[in-house]
C-alpha cells in the first residue's frame, strides 16, 4: 500500500480515537441509535450530537462529496480505509439519510450549481432530512405510471396527488418526488423530479402500520400544494425518469455498502449464537445455515467485485439489478433461519427477532421487486427477446 494511504490510515485512526465519544463505542445499530438529523430531530444523547458535529466538521458525514459542500473529498481507497477504521473503533455512522444516499448523488450528477449550493451543505450537516416520493397506489412496479400532477401556474407549480410507501415522510423536512408535468407525453417522458418542502400548506402524511408492528412508511398527500418554480426541478423538465433511473441504479450498486471481503461484518454464528445449543439436534436447520453462510460470503465478494468493476470503468449497468435481487433474497433466508433456530423463543415480540424477520419481507419488494429485477436482467443483460 502506498505510504500516502498508510499516513491517511494513521491520521484517521488517531482522529477517531480523539473524537469518538466513549458512550457511542460499539453500540448496536438500530432505530434507537441511528442519527437521521433534520429540523425535527431530537438527539438521543449529547454524545450523538457531538459525534455528528465533529464528523461534519471533518467532512466525514459524506466522505466522498466535494469539500465545498461539507464533504470530505476522499478517494475510494481513502473512504475504504475510513470505513475500516470506523468499524475497528466500533464507531457508529454519524448520520444516515436519504439525502446522503439518494438526493445528494442525484444533485451531484444533475443539479445546477445553485441547487447544489442550497441543498448539499444542509444534507452533510444533517440539518435537513429528506424523504423519497416515488410510489403511488397505482404506480408500484409500474413506477412510470405516476399520476401525481404538477400544473404550471406561471410562478409556481400546483401539485395534487398521493404518494405511498414514503419512508419516514412524517419525520422529514423535504421530499424529492416524481410528478407528472406533461400529461400528453408517453408515460416515461412526462415526469419531472421535483423538490418540495413538507411544511408547504396542503402537504400531509399518514403513517402505515406494517406487519412488523413498525410504521416506517407513510402515505403522503398533496392537496393544491404551491411549489415555487425557482430550483424546483432537478435535471431537465419532463426528464425526471432519467434522474430516477440513475438513482435506482446507483442505489442498487450501493446495496450493502459494507467493505466486502470475508472477514467483515457479523457472522451468522454471531447472530444466532451457539448452533450446538440452539439447533444441535436439528441437522436440517444446521445444513440450511451452512448453505446460507457459503452464499452470503460469496455475495459479499460479489459486491466487492462489482465495485471494482465500476471503479475500473468497465461499468456494471443493469447487472446491478442482480445484486438487489440476490442480496434481498439472501437476507430473507437469513431471517428465516434465525427465526427457526430460536424456535418458540423468537415468537415473542420482546425478543426482538420477529420484527426484523417480518421487516425483511419488504426487502424484495421495495426499490423494485425481485421479479422486476429478474425482468431487468433477462431483458437488458441477457437480451432475451420480448416475443
Amino acid at each position, binding site marked *: 500500500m502506498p505510504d500516502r494511504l498508510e499516513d491517511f490510515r494513521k491520521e484517521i485512526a488517531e482522529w477517531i480515537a480523539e473524537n469518538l465519544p466513549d458512550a457511542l463505542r460499539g453500540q448496536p445499530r438500530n432505530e434507537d441509535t441511528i442519527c437521521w438529523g433534520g429540523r425535527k430531530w431530537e438527539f438521543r444523547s449529547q454524545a450523538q450530537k457531538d459525534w455528528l458535529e465533529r464528523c461534519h466538521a471533518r467532512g466525514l458525514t459524506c466522505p466522498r462529496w466535494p469539500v465545498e459542500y461539507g464533504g470530505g473529498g476522499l478517494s475510494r481507497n481513502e473512504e475504504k480505509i475510513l470505513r475500516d477504521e470506523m468499524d475497528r473503533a466500533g464507531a457508529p455512522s454519524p448520520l444516515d439519510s436519504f439525502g446522503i444516499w439518494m438526493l445528494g448523488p442525484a444533485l451531484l450528477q444533475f443539479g445546477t450549481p445553485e441547487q447544489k449550493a442550497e441543498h448539499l451543505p444542509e444534507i452533510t450537516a444533517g440539518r435537513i432530512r429528506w424523504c423519497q416520493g416515488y410510489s403511488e397506489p397505482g404506480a408500484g412496479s409500474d413506477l412510470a405510471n405516476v399520476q401525481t400532477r404538477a400544473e404550471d401556474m406561471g410562478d409556481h407549480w400546483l401539485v395534487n396527488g398521493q404518494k405511498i410507501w414514503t419512508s419516514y415522510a412524517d419525520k422529514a423536512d423535504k421530499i424529492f418526488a416524481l410528478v407528472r408535468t406533461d400529461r400528453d407525453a408517453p408515460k416515461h417522458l412526462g415526469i419531472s423530479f421535483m423538490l418540495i418542502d413538507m411544511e408547504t400548506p396542503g402537504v400531509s402524511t399518514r403513517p402505515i402500520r406494517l406487519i412488523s408492528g413498525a410504521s416506517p412508511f407513510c402515505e403522503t398527500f398533496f392537496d393544491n400544494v404551491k411549489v415555487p418554480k425557482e430550483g424546483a426541478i432537478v435535471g431537465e423538465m419532463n426528464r425526471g425518469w432519467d434522474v430516477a433511473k440513475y438513482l435506482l441504479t446507483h442505489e442498487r450498486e450501493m446495496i450493502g455498502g459494507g467493505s466486502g471481503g470475508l472477514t467483515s461484518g457479523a457472522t451468522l454464528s454471531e447472530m444466532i449464537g451457539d448452533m450446538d445449543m440452539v439447533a444441535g439436534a436439528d441437522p436440517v436447520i444446521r445444513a440450511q445455515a451452512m448453505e446460507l453462510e457459503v452464499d452470503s*460470503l460469496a455475495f459479499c*465478494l460479489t459486491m466487492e467485485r462489482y465495485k471494482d468493476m465500476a471503479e475500473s470503468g468497465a461499468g456494471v449497468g443493469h447487472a446491478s439489478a442482480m445484486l438487489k435481487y440476490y442480496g434481498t433474497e439472501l437476507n430473507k433466508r437469513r431471517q428465516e433461519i434465525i427465526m427457526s433456530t430460536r424456535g418458540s423463543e423468537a415468537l415473542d415480540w420482546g425478543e426482538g427477532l420477529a420484527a426484523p424477520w417480518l421487516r425483511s419481507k419488504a426487502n424484495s419488494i421495495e426499490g423494485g421487486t425481485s421479479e422486476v429485477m429478474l425482468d431487468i436482467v433477462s431483458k437488458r443483460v441477457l437480451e432475451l427477446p420480448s416475443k
Partner: protein
Amino acid sequence: MERLVDTEDEGMLRDAARGFLDENAPVSAFRTNRDAGRAFDPGLWREMAQMGWAGVLIGEDHGGADMGHRAAGILAEEMGRTLAASPFLSSAVIAASTMRVAGSDRLSQIAEGTALYALAVDEGPKHAPDLTAMEARPEGNGFRLSGRKVFVADGASADRVLVLARSGEGEEGLTLFDIDTARAGLAHTAADSIDARDFATLDFENVEATGEDVVGEVGGGLAALAPGLRAGQAALAAELSGLTAGISAMTLGYLKERKQFDRTIGSFQALQHRAAHLFAEIEVTASAVAHAGRVLDHEPERAQLAVSLAKARATQTAKLAVMEGVQMHGGIGMTDDYDAGFFMKRARVGAEWLGDYGHHAAIVAAMRGL
C-alpha cells in the same frame, strides 16, 4: 490485494487462451477424443506446454512461467468452457504446487509438460484425506505401500503418482510419496468414467518407497499435500465456473432461437426468470472463484476458506447450469448428438473430485464458527 476483476495481463491471457481453445480444442474435439476412447490429446498438451501453461505455477528458475494461481484459474476457466481435456490440473496445478513448496528437481519436467502426474488420495466414494488407511509399512530405510486408491485423475496415463499413505496413527501419521507408476507391485485399472476422462483405480502391493520418495516430512503428509490440494480445488472450481459459462451460453442461444407456440421460447417469463436467476448464481460464483485465486497468490497460508468457498459455490452453480441447460433445451438436450450432456457429465465428476459441496461447505461453516 489485487482487485477481483482481471488485470490487463490477465485479460490478455484470457483472450489468448480462448482464441487458442476455440480453434484447437472446441467441444467437437472433445467429442472426437471420446469417440476414439482417448482421455486427452497429447499433441494438444504439447502445444499448451509450449505456451507456458504447464509451467504456469512453476518458478522461472525451473523453466516455468510463474504466472500465479489466478492465471491458472483463468486457464482452467477457459478449458472448462470448451471441455478441453488435458493433464493441466493433475500435473501443472496439483503436482506443481505440491512440489514447488516441497522442493523437487522434477519441477522443470512438469513445466516442460513431459512429466505427467496423478494424485492418489481417495480410498472410498467420498474425498476424505484424513481418513486415509492405505498402509506405508516401515522397512529398512524406507516403506512398503499396500492398498487401493480410487478415483485417481489421470491415473492410467501418469508417469508418476503422488500417493498419501498411513505411516502411523492419527493426523500426524500420514506421509506423502512421489512414486514412479512403473514401479513393481503398482497396477492400474482404468475406470469407464462418465466424463470420458482418465480416472483409474490404483492397486499397491508391497510397492517399495525409499526415503527419497517422501514429499515433505514423514508424518507430514497432510501438510505436504495441502498446497497442491488447495491449488487443485481452486483450479477445479475455476474449470467448473468456465463449464457453467459454456453451457449457459449454449442455453441462452437456444432460448433466443427456438420457437414454439409461434414465439421464441426465451420470451416466456417463466424461462426468463430462471435464466436471470442462473445469471445471478453465475456472477456470485465467479467472484468466489476469482477471490480464491487472489488469496492463493497473496496469502496462501490463509487460503482454505476462500478455496473451499469457491469449490462449494462452483459445484452448486455448475449443477444448476447443466440441469437448466438440459431442461431448457428439451428433448434435444437428452441426445448424445447434442453437446449439453457432456457438460452435465463433467459437472458431476467435477462435483465429486477433490471434495464435494458438503465437504467444502462444512469447512466454510467450521471456519466461520457455525
